[in-house]
């Protein structure tokens, strides 16, 4: 028998093998083995993930991957969630839809995060893709229920419509009536972000009733509790359910109807919603609690005793989102009831209050770290912390992959010792060898960054605020964190030296955000001039950076790698630093007019 060498397999065989490789990372690796594998792989890649919509152009993607069926795009930087990115910065999806409409007629899935989506884009999607199945708009904005109506009417095989956390111009609830009677394919519908008071409930009921494969349904706040029993009876096969507001006039049969309805849902594993909770109706959930793996109570204004009662019925809980009303006592109860807990998020009920309104401290988190050995992901808002607590938590939970701690008052020290929290966070990065995401808070010196640079070798995303003493801090991170992809910094004394010394590092990352730091305009220009594969964007809404000295710090800096060069859709308050200096093709003539409209005081200052 002749010995066959690996690369003499026919392409079809390799393609078949590659079809088992789903992960984008692995696919990228496969494509780099040799030229023929690159070619074969690119023709059979069906799913593309683009973490920054400005890193590459639609034409480039289409050219390399001609047969894509599923695309995921992310737009604005993460700090846009906290209003740090001005409106109009960018992240428009329309150019992508336009290109894909021509090139990918068989496109089935579009997933977008933090992008600006217009009704025009939605109409184009509905018109262009005959087999369109999945639309996920995560934290998007710019569209209205009219666009949704177009999707409902035009996409005959729609399976998923998920609008999570998007800002939708809710013109009317009647868009739901645009789903034709023939639409029975829905598997997932998430309209929890819709604000209107009227949801066309009868249309919703009919839709739910005729979609036997519906697994996930998340209603919006407008849907009142008395309507839920009906919906659940129409869809007992639900796995994931989001209630509307969990309140109604106290009537005897509502509770019993609701309990019966929940009992009929034998597959239900995940619950959310719970706006305006009336605790008397929580026992309706008891029939499903033993099977619950995910519970989102982060809108529920119930207090510790009620939370404890509910949570103690949920021994299978893996994921809990809750307000800090749970308090330390509730977290202790959680730690003893929910041994399978993997993810915990505790949100502040009164983020702007000066004094604590609840008894939630570092002790609660310590209890959970002690009682829940599988804990991997934490988001915790609190008002006090100690190094000792952080060290204990780190030792209890070496498996952390995500640790985000937000001590509400900036620069809060260890309240027992008065020291910075460097040692505490240092323990986290030292013990948690698989840590991928970290958010810092409290009083922190350059030392914490030394620890991070030394130990956090798997860290991919770091968020820093009001921390550090000097450029050395930033340098530690940029030079030490080998896996770093995203770095976002605000209000830290980090300047030019660290960035310029580590310019090459920035090309290995997706993006760097720095606002209210001390990076000078001159350094930005230099970075833009020298690094051709970086887009260096300076954002300043008050006045153009070139009107000041080169040594003046810029307000906001966003640096990201890109193979498509500077973008052409920048608003007047964004400048790209490149070989030709600071540029914004959109702003030369319009700049002063626009600035006049935006900032009257700028003009008066210059008079």
């Amino acid at each position, binding site marked *: 028998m002749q010995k066959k060498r690996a690369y003499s397999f026919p392409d079809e065989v390799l393609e078949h093998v590659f079809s088992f490789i789903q992960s984008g990372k692995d696919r990228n690796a496969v494509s780099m083995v040799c030229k023929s594998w690159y070619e074969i792989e690119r023709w059979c890649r069906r799913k593309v993930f683009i973490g920054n919509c400005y890193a590459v152009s639609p034409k480039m993607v289409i050219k390399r991957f001609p047969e894509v069926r599923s695309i995921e795009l992310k737009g604005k930087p993460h700090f846009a969630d*906290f*209003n740090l990115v001005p409106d109009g910065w960018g992240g428009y999806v329309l150019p992508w839809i336009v290109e894909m409409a021509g090139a990918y007629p068989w496109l089935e899935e579009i997933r977008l995060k933090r992008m600006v989506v217009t009704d025009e884009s939605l109409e184009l999607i509905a018109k262009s893709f005959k087999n369109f199945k999945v639309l996920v708009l995560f934290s998007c904005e710019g569209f209205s229920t009219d666009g949704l109506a177009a999707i409902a009417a035009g996409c005959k095989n729609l399976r998923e419509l998920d609008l999570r956390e998007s800002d939708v111009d809710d013109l009317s609830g009647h868009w739901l009536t645009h789903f034709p009677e023939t639409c029975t394919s829905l598997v997932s519908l998430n309209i929890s972000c819709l604000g209107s008071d009227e949801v066309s409930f009868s249309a919703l009921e009919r839709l739910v009733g005729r979609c036997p494969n519906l697994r996930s349904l998340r209603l919006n706040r407008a849907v009142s509790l008395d309507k839920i029993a009906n919906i659940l009876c129409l869809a007992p096969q639900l796995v994931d359910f989001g209630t509307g507001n969990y309140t109604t006039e106290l009537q005897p049969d509502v509770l019993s109807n609701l309990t019966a309805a929940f009992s009929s849902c034998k597959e239900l594993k995940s619950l959310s919603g719970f706006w305006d909770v009336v605790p008397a109706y929580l026992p309706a959930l008891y029939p499903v609690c033993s099977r619950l793996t995910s519970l989102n109570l982060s809108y529920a204004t119930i207090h510790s005793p009620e939370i404890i009662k509910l949570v103690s019925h949920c021994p299978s809980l893996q994921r809990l989102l809750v307000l800090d009303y749970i308090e330390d006592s509730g977290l202790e109860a959680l730690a003893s009831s929910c041994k399978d807990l993997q993810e915990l998020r505790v949100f502040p009920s009164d983020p*702007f209050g*000066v004094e604590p309104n609840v008894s939630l401290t570092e002790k609660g988190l310590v209890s959970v770290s002690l009682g829940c050995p599988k804990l991997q992901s934490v988001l915790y808002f609190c008002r006090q912390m100690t190094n000792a607590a952080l060290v204990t938590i780190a030792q209890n939970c070496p498996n952390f992959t995500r640790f985000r701690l937000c001590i509400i008052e900036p620069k809060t020290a260890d309240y027992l010792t008065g020291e910075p929290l460097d040692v505490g966070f240092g323990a986290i990065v030292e013990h948690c060898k698989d840590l991928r995401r970290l958010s810092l808070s409290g009083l922190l010196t350059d030392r914490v960054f030394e620890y991070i640079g030394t130990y956090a070798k798997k860290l991919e995303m770091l968020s820093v605020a009001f921390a550090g003493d000097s450029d050395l801090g930033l340098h530690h991170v940029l030079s030490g964190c080998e896996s770093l992809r995203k770095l976002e910094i605000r209000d830290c004394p980090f300047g030019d030296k660290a960035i310029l010394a580590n310019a090459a590092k920035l090309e290995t990352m997706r993006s760097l955000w720095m606002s209210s730091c001390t990076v000078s305009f001159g350094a930005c220009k230099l970075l833009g001039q020298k690094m051709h594969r970086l887009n260096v964007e300076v954002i300043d809404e008050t006045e153009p950076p070139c009107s000041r000295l080169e040594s003046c710090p810029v307000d906001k800096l966003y640096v990201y790698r890109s193979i498509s060069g500077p973008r052409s859709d920048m608003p007047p308050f964004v400048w790209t630093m490149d070989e030709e200096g600071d540029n914004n093709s959109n702003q030369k003539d319009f700049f002063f007019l626009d600035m006049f409209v935006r900032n009257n005081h700028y003009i008066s200052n210059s008079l």
Partner: protein
Amino acid sequence: MENTSAYQNDLNLKATELRLGLPGTTDEETAVPGVRNNKRPLQEVAAAADEKCGANGKSAPPSKAQIVGWPPVQSYRKNNLPAKKPETEAGIYVKVSMDGAPYLRKIDLRVYKGYSELLQALENMFKFTAGEYSEREGYKGSDYAPTYEDKDGDWMLAGDVPWQMFITSCKRLRIMKGSEARGLGYGTV
């Protein structure tokens, strides 16, 4: 700028001023002529905060200047924050007069959960005591009786009908004094 000086030229500002305080809170005795006083802006804000809290019987600390985007809570979460019920209904503002008082007040009936809260607010506002209410005898033990004009134009004693019915039918309030009050059912022998 022009508006302020014209405003300050008006007489009797305090009675007509729009205040941040809830009805029933004590007036600032120091003559702060109104929201537009440029001289004491910080105290005005603090005073308004105190007035707000005074009605609830506890003092909340002033909220401090907020840093943009901090703490990092997404806006949809902030909008969903509890503590305040969604104000989907417009306020029901009615005029309140008291016999012998020089000018009227206006209150928002939606702010109160029931008669006892309303009476307490009126008592604070006009410095009187209403006496104890009973269905049989009306307000016993006081020279004053809280009355209201209903949709039909009749003057009724406040407290007889359920609260929700009251606030939707009340057009104005009048705190009657003396013999007129007694005629409405008070102190029948």
